[in-house]
């Protein structure tokens, strides 16, 4: 299974066990995402959006079903292989930014580059990207000295520094005001256009979802609608 898709899932299921109780988070998700597609995923809390993200991002294995990411069958990968996938193929942008608080913005980006096995200094192209993100002059500050919008733009810079094929953004504007939200969404769309990265974005906000090429609606662990 691949069919030219960057991401493809079939009958994907995930069940969490809390003591004796089984909680189904995904109840058979079929999804195909083309390379370079910007896909928005919307749905209420508990609809399974984040679980789908975690599986595609190789943070957790599925209970059953098939999931292919960049040609790899994630259900068959070991823990170490999934770690390698996160290092080179998939990267994340989180609602809470998730920058390392002890490090400057520059060091946060450098850590990602180091873990990804790339040379310490990114190239001129990346410097240009930092200028586009508007954080060139904020790189020597720690996260506590940056605004929410700046932190999220640093998180985006960190996510793309290793040129991953897929960018997973989990409510990237959830903690931002309208102005910063629009700026971050514009950056994501620009990155998608400029670098051709496949982007999956979870959002509650229909306006934010409209930045994507297509919007998928989830409810109760299933995809109920795909628009666009």
């Amino acid at each position, binding site marked *: 299974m691949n069919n030219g898709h960057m991401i493809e899932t079939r009958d994907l299921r995930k069940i969490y066990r809390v003591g004796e109780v089984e909680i189904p988070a995904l109840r058979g998700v079929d999804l195909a995402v083309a390379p370079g597609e910007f896909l928005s995923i919307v749905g209420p809390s508990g609809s399974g959006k984040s679980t789908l993200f*975690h599986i595609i*991002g190789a*943070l*957790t294995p599925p209970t059953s079903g098939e999931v292919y990411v960049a040609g790899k069958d994630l259900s068959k990968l070991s*823990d*170490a292989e999934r*770690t*390698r*996938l*996160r*290092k*080179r193929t998939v*990267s*994340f942008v*989180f609602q809470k930014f*998730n*920058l*390392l*608080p*002890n*490090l400057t913005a520059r*060091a946060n980006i*450098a*850590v*990602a580059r*180091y*873990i*990804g096995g790339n040379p*310490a200094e990114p190239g001129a192209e990346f410097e240009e990207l930092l200028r586009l993100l508007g954080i060139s002059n904020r790189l020597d500050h720690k996260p506590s000295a940056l605004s929410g919008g700046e932190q999220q733009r640093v998180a985006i810079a*960190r996510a793309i520094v290793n040129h991953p094929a897929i960018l997973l953004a989990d409510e990237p504007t959830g903690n931002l005001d309208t102005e910063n939200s629009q700026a971050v969404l514009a950056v994501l769309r620009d990155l998608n256009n400029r670098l051709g990265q496949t982007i999956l974005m979870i959002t509650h906000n229909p306006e934010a979802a409209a930045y994507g090429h297509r919007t998928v609606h989830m409810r109760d662990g299933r995809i109920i609608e795909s628009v666009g």
Partner: protein
Amino acid sequence: MTGTLVLENLKHRPMRSLLSLLLMGVPVTLILALVGLTQGMLQDARERQRGVGADVVVHGTAATSAVAFTGAPLPEGYVDVIEKQPHVKLAMGVLNHNIDLPLVIFGIDIKKFDQMNGGFTYLEGHTFQGPDDILVDRLYASQKHLHVGDAISLMGHNWHVAGIVESGKLARIAVPLATLQDLDAAHNHVTSIFVQADNPSNADLLAEELKKLIPDASVNTMADIVAMYSSNNIPGVKEFTLVIMVLGVIIGFLVVYLSMYMSVLQRTREIGILKSLGASKGFILAIIQIEAVVLAIGGTILGVIMSFGVWWLIRTLVPASIPMIIVPWWWPIAGAITLVGALLGALYPGLSAASHDPIEALAYE
């Protein structure tokens, strides 16, 4: 980059880092102080024995002690007998009386003492001029704040400080032999006899002859006596040092274990972030282990610095009783002990961090 992560983590919680360093430094200081005390006392004893200028020493044995019922088992008459033997240049009887161990009062025949080694170097005052005169060395004078002319009570007897001498020749505290014999009821008896050979190369030959002459005494060359002042020959010192070293490992282990355990707990989310970036288990474990190594190195440096503090304190307060020295070649040993404890202590927290579930770690508040 790993170094930046480790250093920034340590800097981020300076009080905990500082306390960890301090706690890891304590066993290093304990080890270095113990070794410094042992080596210092042995070195001091060796130097003072050598300073007598004798080549052979005759001591009483258990048998002679039992006969004499005293710490002065050798008849003083042996001194004259020994002096008449071939290859003997000079013999000198000495009476010892232990006060506050390791301090000992030596009753000496000052004329023979002067002949044997050129005598004390006087920093203040002069030699004995009366039976109640006492000579003390620089360290004992410093410890007891004594000056020439002061009165001092030892063994229930009042002494007059006649002179303060440079250390390194047999005694920290010396009194006339006859006075000490009176006080100890050891008339015409001595504890040991120091014998100077006509030529130092005859020491072994002379020792053999004296063994034949006084078979119930213990006869040793000065070279043998000096060689005996080794920590290996003092019962219990080796074992005690080992116990302190094991304690060092255990303390290092516990300090790092608790510090790293707390650190890993507080950094759960950060570990989740690193994992989401693709950090392997080995990378996470390495960060924790390197942090432990940094703490161990810092703790060792602090421990060495604190050992200088202990050295200064002891030299200021009790320089005569405890002649501690600094033993630099034990620094790496103490460091290695701390490092072993730290690496062991960081192992479980490190493995625990490495095996965190990234999703749970990212959700940790």
